[in-house]
C-alpha cells in the first residue's frame, strides 16, 4: 500500500469541500454556467484517489493472505474534553475503499449528468455547491476512524439532503418534504447520538480500532473481546447500544417505521434522488451496521430486529410501489424495499451480501433514477406513467438504458441485481425460512412493478404529453443552444412540438457507464467470491465473524448445489414477475387497469401507503401540535406574565415617586435631600 495515498487521503473530502466553497461563493452571476467545474475537479479527484486506494488495498489484501487489513490514519486531535479525545482521522480497510469508490465514482458520474440536467437553472451554482458539500460529508462518513467522525458525516449528509430536497424552495411541496426528511431523521439520530454516548460511557472510547488493528484499544475490539473480560455495566450497555445505533440506521436508510421521508424526498432534482436518495446516503445505515458488527452480533435480539425490520420494509416498499404512478415514486419505494434487503443481509450475519447488494444497487438504481430524469426532461416535467406511453421511439437511447436498469432491478439472471439479491435471499433462507420466503415474494413483486413501469412508459402506442407540468422547471434556453450535449441520434419524432435533442451526450455518457456497471457489477462476486474475499479481510468483518463463531458456534457450510437451486428459483420468480407485467400492462392493458377494481380494498390500502402518513399525522403530529399550542398559551400568559410583572413593579414605583416628589420646586428637592441625609445620618450614628 503506497503510504502517500493514505497520507494524502484527506484530499478526498477536502477537494470537494473547496469545490463547494468556490462554486457557492464565486460562481455566481456571469460565471454561473461554469459552476460545475470546481465540483467536477474536486469529485473527479476524489474518485481517482478512491480507485487508487481500492487498487492499493486489493494488492495489499492479496499479499496479506486472508489476514485482516486496516490502516488508521490520524491527522490531528479534533477536540478533547478530559478522557473524551476525538481525533480527526481516517480508517482504511476493504469496506472503506469499496464504499469510497461507490460514493466518489457514482458521485462523479452523477455530477457530470447534473451539468446537463440542471443546465440554465437559476440556482445552478447553489446546486453544485450542495453536491460538493454532500461528497465532503459522505466521504467523512465512510472514512472516519471513530463514531464521532461518522456522526459528523451522518449529520452533514442529512443537512445536504435537506438543502437539496428543498432546492426548489419556492415550491411548497419541496419545502414540506425537506422539513419532513430532516425531522424524521432527527428521530433516528437522537437514538444514534445516545448510542454513541453509551459507547463512550461503557468503553471509554469511540474510535473503531484505536491505535491500530489488533492493539485492542478500539471500541470494536474491546466490545468484540471475550464476554468474561467485560464488566457488568459493559455487558448491560451492549444490550442497549445496538438498538440505539439501529434507530439512527433506520432513520437514515428509510426503514420501517421511519421510511416516510424518502418518497417525499423525490421533490428534489433527479440527480439528487439518484445520488443521495438511492445510491449513497441512504446506504449509510447499512455501512454503519456492517462497520460496527461486533457491537450488534453479541445481541441476538438486535440482529433479529434488524433482519425483521428489513424484511418488513422490503415487503412494504415493494407492495406500495405496485400502485404508484409517478416514475420517481416507484423507484423511491423500490429503493426502500432494496434497502430492506440490505438490512436483512446484515441482520442475518451476511454483511458481505449486504455490501455487495449495496454496490450493485448503487449502479442500477442511479441508472434508473437518472433515466427517469431524462424522461422527465423530455416530457416537460411529467412523470406520471398514465400520461405517457410508447416512448421507445422518442427516447431510443434512454429506453435501452432503462431496460438494462429494470432488468438488473428485477433480478434477471446474469445482470448484477440477480447475483446480489440472490445471495441475500439465500442467507436469509438459511437463517429462517420465513425471512427467505418474504424476500422471495418481494423479489417477485419487484420484477412485476419494475416491468409494469417499463412496459407502460416505453412500450405500446406512443403517447407524449404536450403541455408542461405545473411545476416544470424548464430552463429558458433549450438544448439546441447548449454548448455541449449534441448526441447524434435520429430525430425520429418530428411530429411533436419540441423537436430538440432530448438525449444530449453529457447526460447519456454517464448513464452508459452506469449501465455497464449495472450489467457487470454482479461478476465482482460471481462465480468467484472476489468481493467477498476482499471484504472478509476487513477487520470489522473478521471480528464480527470470530465473535459470532464463539457465541453461536461454527456455521454449517452452505451446500453449493442448494445455492444453485436457489438461483434457479430466483430466476424463475423474476421471469414470472416480468411475464405477469407483460400480460397485464402491454398485451392487454385493460385487464391491468381492471385489476385494481377487482381487489378494491387492497388497492386502496396500497394507494394510501398503509395510511402510515395519516397515522403519524393523527397520533404523533397532531398531539404534538396540541402540546405546542398548550405550551404557547402557557408561555404567553404565565411565563410572559411573570416577566411582565417583574418589569412592571419598579415602573409603577417610579411612576408614583415621579408624581409625588418630582414637582419642579427647587425647595422641595432640597428638603427631600436634607431629609434623606438626615435619615442616612440617623442610620449611621443614631442606631449605631
Amino acid at each position: 500500500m503506497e503510504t502517500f495515498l493514505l497520507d494524502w487521503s484527506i484530499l478526498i473530502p477536502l477537494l470537494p469541500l473547496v469545490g463547494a466553497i468556490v462554486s457557492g461563493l464565486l460562481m455566481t452571476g456571469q460565471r454561473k454556467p461554469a459552476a460545475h467545474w470546481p465540483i467536477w475537479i474536486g469529485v473527479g479527484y476524489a474518485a481517482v484517489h478512491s480507485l487508487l486506494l481500492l487498487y492499493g488495498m486489493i494488492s495489499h489484501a492479496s499479499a496479506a493472505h486472508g489476514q485482516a487489513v486496516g490502516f488508521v490514519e490520524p491527522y490531528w486531535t479534533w477536540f478533547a474534553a478530559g478522557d473524551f479525545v476525538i481525533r480527526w482521522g481516517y480508517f482504511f480497510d476493504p469496506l472503506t475503499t469499496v464504499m469510497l469508490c461507490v460514493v466518489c465514482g457514482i458521485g462523479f458520474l452523477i455530477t457530470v449528468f447534473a451539468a446537463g440536467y440542471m443546465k440554465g437553472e437559476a440556482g445552478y451554482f447553489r446546486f453544485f455547491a450542495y453536491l460538493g458539500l454532500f461528497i465532503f460529508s459522505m466521504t467523512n462518513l465512510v472514512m472516519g476512524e471513530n463514531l464521532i467522525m461518522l456522526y459528523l458525516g451522518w449529520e452533514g449528509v442529512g443537512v445536504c439532503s435537506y438543502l437539496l430536497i428543498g432546492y426548489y424552495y419556492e415550491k411548497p411541496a419541496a419545502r414540506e418534504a425537506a422539513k419532513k426528511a430532516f425531522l424524521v431523521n432527527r428521530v433516528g439520530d437522537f437514538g444514534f447520538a445516545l448510542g454513541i454516548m453509551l459507547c463512550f460511557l461503557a468503553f471509554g472510547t469511540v474510535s473503531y480500532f484505536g491505535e491500530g488493528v489488533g492493539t485492542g484499544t478500539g471500541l470494536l475490539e474491546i466490545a468484540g473481546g471475550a464476554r468474561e473480560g467485560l464488566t457488568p455495566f459493559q455487558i448491560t450497555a451492549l444490550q442497549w447500544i445496538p438498538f440505539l445505533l439501529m434507530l439512527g440506521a433506520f432513520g437514515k436508510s428509510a426503514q420501517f417505521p421511519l421510511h416516510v421521508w424518502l418518497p417525499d424526498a423525490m421533490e428534489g432534482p433527479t440527480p439528487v434522488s439518484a445520488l443521495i436518495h438511492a445510491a449513497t446516503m441512504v446506504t449509510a445505515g447499512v455501512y454503519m451496521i456492517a462497520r460496527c458488527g461486533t457491537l450488534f452480533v453479541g445481541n441476538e435480539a438486535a440482529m433479529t430486529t434488524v433482519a425483521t425490520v428489513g424484511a418488513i420494509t422490503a415487503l412494504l416498499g415493494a407492495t406500495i410501489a405496485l400502485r404508484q404512478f409517478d416514475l420517481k415514486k416507484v423507484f423511491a419505494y423500490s429503493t426502500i424495499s432494496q434497502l430492506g434487503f440490505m438490512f436483512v443481509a446484515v441482520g442475518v450475519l451476511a454483511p458481505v451480501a449486504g455490501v455487495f447488494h449495496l454496490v450493485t444497487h448503487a449502479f442500477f438504481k442511479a441508472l434508473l433514477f437518472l433515466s427517469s430524469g431524462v424522461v422527465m426532461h423530455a416530457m416537460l416535467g411529467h412523470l406520471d406513467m398514465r400520461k405517457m406511453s410508447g416512448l421507445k421511439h422518442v427516447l431510443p437511447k434512454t429506453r435501452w438504458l432503462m431496460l438494462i436498469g429494470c432488468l438488473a432491478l428485477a433480478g434477471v439472471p446474469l445482470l448484477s441485481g440477480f447475483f446480489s439479491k440472490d445471495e441475500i435471499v439465500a442467507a436469509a433462507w438459511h437463517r429462517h425460512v420465513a425471512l427467505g420466503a418474504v424476500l422471495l415474494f418481494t423479489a417477485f413483486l419487484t420484477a412485476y412493478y419494475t416491468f409494469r413501469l417499463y412496459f407502460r412508459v416505453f412500450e405500446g402506442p406512443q403517447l407524449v404529453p404536450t403541455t408542461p407540468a405545473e411545476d416544470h422547471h424548464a430552463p429558458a434556453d433549450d438544448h439546441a443552444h447548449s454548448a455541449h450535449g449534441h448526441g447524434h441520434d435520429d430525430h425520429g419524432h418530428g411530429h411533436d412540438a419540441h423537436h430538440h435533442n432530448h438525449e444530449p451526450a453529457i447526460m447519456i455518457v454517464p448513464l452508459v457507464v452506469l449501465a455497464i456497471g449495472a450489467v457487470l457489477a454482479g461478476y465482482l462476486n460471481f462465480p468467484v467470491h472476489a468481493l467477498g474475499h476482499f471484504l472478509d479481510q476487513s477487520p470489522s468483518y473478521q471480528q464480527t465473524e470470530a465473535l459470532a463463531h464463539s457465541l453461536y458456534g461454527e456455521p454449517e457450510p452452505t451446500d453449493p448445489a442448494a445455492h444453485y437451486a436457489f438461483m434457479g428459483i430466483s430466476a424463475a420468480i423474476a421471469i414470472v414477475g416480468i411475464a405477469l407485467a407483460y400480460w397485464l400492462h402491454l398485451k392487454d392493458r385493460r385487464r391491468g387497469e381492471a385489476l385494481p377494481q377487482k381487489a378494491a380494498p387492497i388497492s386502496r390500502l396500497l394507494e394510501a401507503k398503509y395510511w402510515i402518513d395519516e397515522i403519524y399525522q393523527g397520533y404523533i403530529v397532531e398531539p404534538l401540535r396540541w402540546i405546542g399550542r398548550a405550551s404557547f398559551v402557557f408561555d404567553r400568559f404565565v411565563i410572559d406574565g411573570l416577566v411582565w410583572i417583574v418589569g412592571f413593579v419598579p415602573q409603577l414605583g417610579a411612576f408614583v415617586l415621579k408624581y409625588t416628589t418630582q414637582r419642579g420646586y427647587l425647595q422641595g428637592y432640597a428638603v427631600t435631600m436634607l431629609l434623606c441625609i438626615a435619615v442616612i445620618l440617623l442610620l449611621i450614628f443614631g442606631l449605631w
Partner: protein
Amino acid sequence: MNELVLQHYLAVGGILFVIGLIGFMTRRNLIVMFLCTELMFQGCALNLIAFGAYHGNLGGQVFTIMVLVIAAAEASLALGLVVLLFRHKHTLDANAWRELKG
C-alpha cells in the same frame, strides 16, 4: 472671661450653615438662594479652619483656600446663569422654571 474654645467656632460655623440651609429652603429668589449656598460654604470653611487651628496644622486652611477658590469660580458661573435665566423670563423666581422637571 471664658476663653474661645473649639466648640465656639464650631457653633458659629453650624449656625452659619443652618442659616444658609433655611434660607435656601424658604426663599425662591435665585440670587438669594445662591447667597444662602455661599453662607453654607462659609460655615463649612469656618469649621475647617477651627479644626486646623485645634490640631495645630495647616490642612484646614489649605482646604478653606480650595473651597474659596472653587466658590469664586462657581459664583461667576452661577451668576452668569442667573442673568441668562432672568433675561428669558424677566423674573428671578425659581418656580418660574418648574417645567424643567421633565
